[in-house]
């Protein structure tokens, strides 16, 4: 297990790194997200379609206001044309309302595309993660998968509204607006638009910088929070070493670094936003100066000048937010490529075409020259040349030093990994040729790490068979020596355990895990070092209770305590991935080999024996 974990640790970064750099993949991701958005053609179409009227209404307002000013100035003070003025006012009101309505439609439709996309992607990601084989999860850090499922999903969700629709909006707004202004007065139009390139550039640079630095800041804050969390979880160690000052120094170092960085970011933001405001007002000043002269010279009307000024104020916000649009693309490209990398990861362990369910007849498990190597880094085989057969009712004990390949071998049986050599058959059927689900129904394993789901104890026990009745649940809990403990809990079987529930000790978790596995009534039952945290007394009671369960299936037990194994029908002693000794307890003792040595060590752990053993 250890070697395997090391290999996994070395490769786990790969998933993160490759996604971030590949430009080609980023562009591909954007194209793919865009296509996915149009899987909701009505909503996407509506959002796009509403953009044009929303922009037109937006642009109409400065024109109407200018008209109002001119109308006012043109009116005769003795006989004001109230009708014309009212008409302009009403138009203004209607246009304002329409602007609001179209903007609402556009925004809501765009967001609903995002939400619909998120919903579908969430389900796809969840399903994918559940089906990807162990080997994938070995080399992928769970934190990275969570990042994909939560943050990257968010980046992809926001793409349609923040990037795509905004692009359309800005293009129309600036395009149509520019044509209008330039046609009215070319020089004044150029002056009014003069702030646009600068603001667009500044805003894009700012958002991209903020995004880049945000990621770095998050990393720094991540380090800080990890230090805090470790400190709090290990507070006894901290106090045992009177290391409070040391811990504060560690905290301060991380904290200061994050703070300084965060100040830099504030600087970037403040400089850019202030500069953009200045550019905008400067352009306005120029329009005022030049336009004012034109007005004074009678070249344009006051209304036209008012139109230009109002237009600028309307354009200001969208242009300043142009950076958000650029950011929307950048985010979608990295988030998207990471997300698609997960979605496209091959599910290497799956049913072959036309696979049928495993049929259990005799209940005989057979391993034929089985070999296995983890693919990463061309590591050598961890298991090789393993052959044995076990019949219903038999118990096989497996033993060996850490790293001997015991766990790796056990994980081949429920097809968590595929053998790289030889074959595993149950009643003559290769487990790779039948459906995965039927294999895992037939081969139940109590794994080394017992995972608890955040739900009640009964739901946890009945995890594999959610329709089980209470009687059965209590029965297996009793066999696993868990029943009495559960009865002592405030809500008994309804007590919620797991991350946000009552925390169980290692031994209790293992017992729960055993109970969960016993629910299955399998053909092959595996205990993979699953009683390490259970004391010897309880373990022997579990063993007694299991005698009945064992009659209907093959039982494989991996353990360190000889007491757990010595009643097995056969014991396999593994070393370096191979079986080096096998036989019954008595036979192996008589053999006088490694098994015998281990036996002596455990039965008589006196210091002198320890010394002898150490020098062996």
């Amino acid at each position, binding site marked *: 297990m250890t070697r395997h974990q090391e290999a996994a640790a070395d490769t786990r970064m790969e998933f993160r790194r490759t996604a971030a750099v590949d430009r080609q993949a980023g562009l591909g991701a954007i194209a793919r997200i865009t296509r996915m958005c149009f899987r909701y053609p009505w909503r996407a179409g509506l959002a796009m379609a509403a953009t044009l009227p929303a922009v037109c209404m937006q642009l109409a307002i400065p024109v109407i206001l200018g008209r109002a000013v001119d109308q006012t100035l043109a009116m005769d003070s003795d006989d004001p044309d109230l009708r014309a003025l009212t008409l302009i*006012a009403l138009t203004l009101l209607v246009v304002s309302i329409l602007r609001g309505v179209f903007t609402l439609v556009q925004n809501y439709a765009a967001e609903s595309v995002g939400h619909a996309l998120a919903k579908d992607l969430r389900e796809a990601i969840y399903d994918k993660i559940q089906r*990807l084989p162990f080997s994938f999860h070995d080399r992928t850090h769970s934190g990275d998968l969570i990042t994909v499922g939560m943050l990257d999903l968010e980046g992809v969700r926001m793409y349609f509204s923040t990037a795509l629709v905004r692009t359309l909006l800005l293009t129309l707004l600036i395009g149509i607006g520019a044509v209008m202004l330039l046609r009215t007065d070319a020089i004044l139009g150029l002056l009014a638009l003069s702030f646009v390139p600068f603001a667009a550039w500044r805003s894009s640079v700012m958002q991209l910088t903020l995004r880049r630095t945000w990621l770095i800041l998050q990393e720094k804050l991540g380090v800080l929070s990890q230090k805090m969390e470790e400190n709090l979880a290990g507070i006894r160690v901290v106090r045992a070493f009177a290391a409070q000052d040391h811990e504060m120094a560690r905290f301060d170092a991380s904290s200061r670094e994050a703070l300084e960085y965060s100040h830099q970011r504030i600087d970037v933001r403040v400089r850019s936003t202030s500069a953009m405001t200045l550019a905008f007002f400067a352009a306005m000043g120029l329009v005022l100066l030049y336009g004012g002269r034109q007005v004074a010279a009678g070249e344009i009307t006051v209304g036209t000048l008012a139109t230009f000024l109002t237009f600028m104020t309307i354009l200001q916000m969208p242009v300043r937010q142009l950076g958000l649009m650029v950011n929307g693309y950048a985010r979608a490209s990295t988030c998207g490529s990471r997300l698609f990398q997960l979605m496209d990861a091959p599910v290497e362990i799956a049913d072959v075409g036309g696979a049928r369910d495993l049929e259990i007849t005799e209940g005989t498990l057979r391993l034929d020259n089985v070999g296995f190597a983890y693919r990463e880094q061309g590591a050598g085989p961890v298991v090789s040349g393993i052959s044995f057969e076990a019949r219903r009712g038999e118990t096989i004990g497996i033993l060996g030093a850490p790293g001997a390949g015991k766990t790796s071998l056990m994980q081949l049986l429920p097809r968590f990994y595929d053998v790289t050599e030889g074959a595993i058959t149950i009643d003559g059927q290769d487990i790779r040729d039948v459906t995965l689900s039927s294999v895992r129904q037939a081969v139940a394993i109590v794994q080394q790490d017992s995972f608890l789901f955040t739900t*009640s104890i*009964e739901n946890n026990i009945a995890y594999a068979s959610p329709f089980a009745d209470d009687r059965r649940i209590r029965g297996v809990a009793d066999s696993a020596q868990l029943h009495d403990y559960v009865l002592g809990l405030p809500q008994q079987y309804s007590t919620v355990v797991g991350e946000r529930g009552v925390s169980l000790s290692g031994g209790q978790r293992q017992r729960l895990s055993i109970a969960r596995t016993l629910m299955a009534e399998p053909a092959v039952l595996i205990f993979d070092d699953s009683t390490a945290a259970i004391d010897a007394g309880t373990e022997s009671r579990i063993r007694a209770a299991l005698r009945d369960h064992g009659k209907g299936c093959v039982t494989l037990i991996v353990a*360190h305590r000889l007491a757990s194994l010595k009643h097995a029908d056969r014991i396999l002693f593994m070393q370096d991935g191979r079986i080096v000794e096998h036989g019954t307890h008595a036979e192996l003792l008589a053999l006088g080999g490694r098994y015998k040595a281990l036996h002596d060590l455990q039965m008589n752990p006196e210091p002198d024996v320890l010394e002898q053993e150490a020098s062996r």
Partner: protein
Amino acid sequence: MSPNGQAEPRDPHADGRPRMRAVVGSTRVEEEIFGRVFDGKVVRRLWTFVAPYKGRVRIAVGAVLVFTLSQLLIPLLIRYAIDYGMAPGAPGWLLAGIVALFALVIAVNYGASLLQERITGQVAENVLFDIRRKMFGHLQHVSLTFMDQTEVGRLMSRLQGDVNSMQEFLETSVQSVGDIALLIGIVAVMLWLDWQLALLVLMVLPILLVVRVLWLARARSAFMAAHEANSVTNGALSEAIHGVRAIQATRREGLNAELYAELTERTWRSQLRASRLAQVMIPIVDTLTGIAMAVVVVAGGLMVVSGRIEVGAMVAFLFYIQRFFDPIRSLTMQYSVMQRAMASGHRLTEVLDVEVDVEDAPDAVALGPQDDASVEFRGVTFGYDPAHPVLKDVSFSVASGERVALVGPTGSGKSSSISLIHRFYDVQDGSVRVGGHDVRDVTQESLGRHIAMVLQEPYLFTGTVMENIRYSSHWASDTDVTEAAKAVGAHDFVEAMPLGYDTLLDERGSNLSLGQRQLLSFARALAADARILVLDEATANIDSYTELQIQKALQKLLEGRTGLVIAHRLATIRNADRIVVLQQGVKIEEGDHDALMARQGLYSKLFTLNHASFDDIAEDLDEEERKVAT
């Protein structure tokens, strides 16, 4: 329970009808997100963190006011430019002069905005880090009882989420001063330009306020519902990721996907609702803006025609109308921010107020080389809950250089005893003495230097192997560290790692085996080079080879030191000079192995049963005793 394990409990719910017992994710009990808008106690407490930056806050507020003033001036300058600078026959320098003034105003605006935003951002950030530091520092000293009772996750959400919402509050507070000033300023300028037209226009203001307040209540519940649905869904995803091996082993993929689809459906609906509510304000504000502008066009237009106001004033009105919805929007937002901040602030105050019950006495002395390495319990009574003592009048002593094993069944008070030596808790009665001093009379720092402690669960920190072994023993050189590792037999596997002593350990050292972690924690205790070693032997059943290594390391660790060991292994017990047997908080036997065997008491019973671990038999024994009793 019957021996075959088939005894069936009576269960009132067992009606034989199958029901599905499957869920994914869990509905979490969310903490109160919104509190009162204003909580004097919280604000006062918060102020103590802001006070050091008083000067800078004043500058920021000043800058905000200048910034707001300059913004108010801009439409006015446009007005003057139109009415005077562009008037027929006006001298050319007048317009140029007004524009020059305009340039001056925007320059001031630029400077003020730079100053205000930078100071506000930095001060808020500093305060955030200060609060976090203060809390973290406080948690280093609060009673362990509090730490035992509080989940780490909960404390982390204090240190992160709650602290962040305080930052948001501080940052937006200064902004709010600007918003209020802007709102008042706009109203004042409009009234000054023409009070009748201003009143007509301002009629929309109360409507907006009412709509906004009504909207806020509904919108907030929708946002919270969306937020909660989202976090439940994310919780389910995270569970699937962490539990993927168990899920595949139990073939729950299909069912889980169906259950998860229900969650995503719920999230989707609640997000759509939240999004609808967020967008619905847009047409409302636009309509009100439209009404206000229409009023200016008709009424203002007529006023211009009648010569009551000038056309520039009308244009200025139109500009102001477009501005005054912004401050109202951010002020109503600020209301939620404040409520959230008060709720967070309240929780922060709670943590900051947790009592520190173990503190150095004012006249505490430092334990030093002059003090011996003895440990003594004098009539110690102690309970986490004073009503239920876990140690009752326990007395024993360990002389300098002696090795004593503490033995007893689970719950006998062994672990509590060693916690007291280190003064994790204070005794209720009697005293614990180290080096001849009552632990309450010496500084905790020196006590920590005098005693090295190895806990049952080896606990490693993220960082290199070197850093982990050295930990807080900053005086230890690299050679000291490698020597310690060699002494406990950790050197070989450390060297075999990719970067040797510079190899980074994963979270909690998960890239190491349990045995390896144990050896590293031994090395850490050895590097601390204390004169007393207190050790809680691991109960976990590790393979015999590792076990052997650990036993040898243990002997090395105890060499030349006073040792007090909570022992589970026979070998460890046999190596002790003396054995203290505890049962249910009472010392029942004491002596060396032979003496205790001769006594024929609990110890000899434990020993005769001859299992590998002492605690195991203790449980068996308890059971046998219970059987005998019934």
